């Protein structure tokens, strides 16, 4: 089983890196987005290999939803019409190559030079639980506050960014019974 685990690890790792490279080689926004999704799904598989079942499957779930939505935005924001024409994902190629090389060298050096601790004791029965406790256990209050703050920020940003506010919808004195919407919703308000 250990050999099988190694094989799966390397296949997923190579696939993740290869599709990560393809994100910058494809000339179509849709392909680039779905290459990124492939890469992230492989990462989800690696997390599953670590025995973190919940986190692995949640990565698959969240990343699929996220990339499907992101494809829409990527296509929308491309300079050429609807992102349907060939495009390139890279610019400033020389500078980017230098930065990437330097970052890779630093990270690789860090991996090789760091004094990794050897395993003490036995693997946990429920690694997901332990990971959650060690990440958030003592800081649960901070995390909950952070979650609320992030959510409030999202709502506030959408409210600020939306083109039509409640005065556009319900009139200057907010007394209009039915909202003046370009597209009617299903609640017949």
């Amino acid at each position, binding site marked *: 089983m250990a050999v099988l685990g190694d094989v799966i690890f390397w296949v997923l790792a190579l696939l993740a890196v290869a599709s990560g490279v393809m994100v910058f080689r494809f000339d179509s926004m*849709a392909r680039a987005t*779905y290459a990124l*999704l492939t890469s992230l799904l492989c990462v989800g598989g690696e997390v599953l290999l670590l025995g973190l*079942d919940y986190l692995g499957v949640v990565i698959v779930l969240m990343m699929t939803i996220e990339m499907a939505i992101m494809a829409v935005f990527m296509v929308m924001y491309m300079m050429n019409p609807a992102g*349907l024409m060939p495009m390139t994902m890279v610019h400033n190629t020389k500078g980017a190559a230098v930065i990437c090389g330097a970052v890779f060298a630093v990270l690789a050096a860090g991996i090789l030079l760091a004094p990794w601790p050897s395993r003490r004791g036995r693997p946990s029965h429920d690694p997901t639980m332990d990971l959650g406790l060690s990440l958030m256990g003592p800081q649960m209050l901070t995390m909950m506050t952070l979650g609320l703050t992030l959510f409030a920020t999202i709502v506030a940003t959408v409210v600020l960014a939306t083109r039509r506010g409640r005065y556009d919808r319900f009139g200057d004195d907010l007394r209009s019974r039915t909202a003046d919407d370009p597209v009617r*919703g*299903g*609640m017949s308000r």
Partner: protein
Amino acid sequence: MSDAAPLWTTVILPVALALAAVVTAGFDAVLSGSAERGPAGSVREAGLRAVAPLREALRLLVQQPRRTTAADRLLGRLGVVLVPVAAVLAGAVLPWGLRSVSDPSVGIVWFNAMEALAWAAVWLVGWGPNSALSLIGGYRFLAQGLAYELPHMFAITTAALGAESLRVGDVVAAQDGLWFVVWMPVAFLVYLLSALAMAFWGPFGHPLSGDAAGGAAAELAGVDRLVFLGGRWLLLVVTAGFSVPLFLGGGHGPLLPGWAWTVIKTAGVLALLVAARRALPVLRMERYMEVAWMVLVPLTLLQALVVAVVVLNR
């Protein structure tokens, strides 16, 4: 309680799901036939109507695939194949009786993740042929997903909460006495709605509807069309089938063995969905979106709250 089934079930699963899909499509064809052309005069005629989907499948097998200019064939094909593959992978955690092909500790999240794959696949199918109408269909399904996915997640979370486990086997075991549908009726109804929406079928068939010349499937012909539309039936069967372990007690029932109860209950849910399709109009997504977020999300949250309080006081 439910241990992993032997290896051969892995081979049986896609066959069984496909068989269920063919039967469901046949039942739908019989109902459609009697609605459009009057009731079948004889048993033979009813039988002919029931095998109409199979005949259509054979016709598609020999039909010439359609090629479009500057199509993204890689992504299009990927999307077409992903729909049935995601359906079968989601079906891997379906318990037949009290055992499933695989019963991982996070089976419910796995099921949800595979549905999300199918959701992304439909956009790929719409994108692939480089055709405006099919792209519109793909975008419609993305919008549909934003509408149904949140209430759906809260509904299945409620069932997991009631069993205090994300393992499908544990959810079934927790319904030994009382089915979840009895004390989680809102979650069950929302689940049925989102099962239809996920299979983009019936009242939620807008991504493939006629006003966009077939939407996401507009440019599909031949084997591509067969795989995609067959995958949609598979999705419907799997999502309807998953309501049985989540809310209808899985394989629990008197006298008959577990697998028989699973089949009976799944058939019942499918028959309900196929029959109810005729009573419901096709929904535009901006309408369902508002209903989903303003009514269904609060309702499912309240349902989850009630279940959470019950579980805490148990």
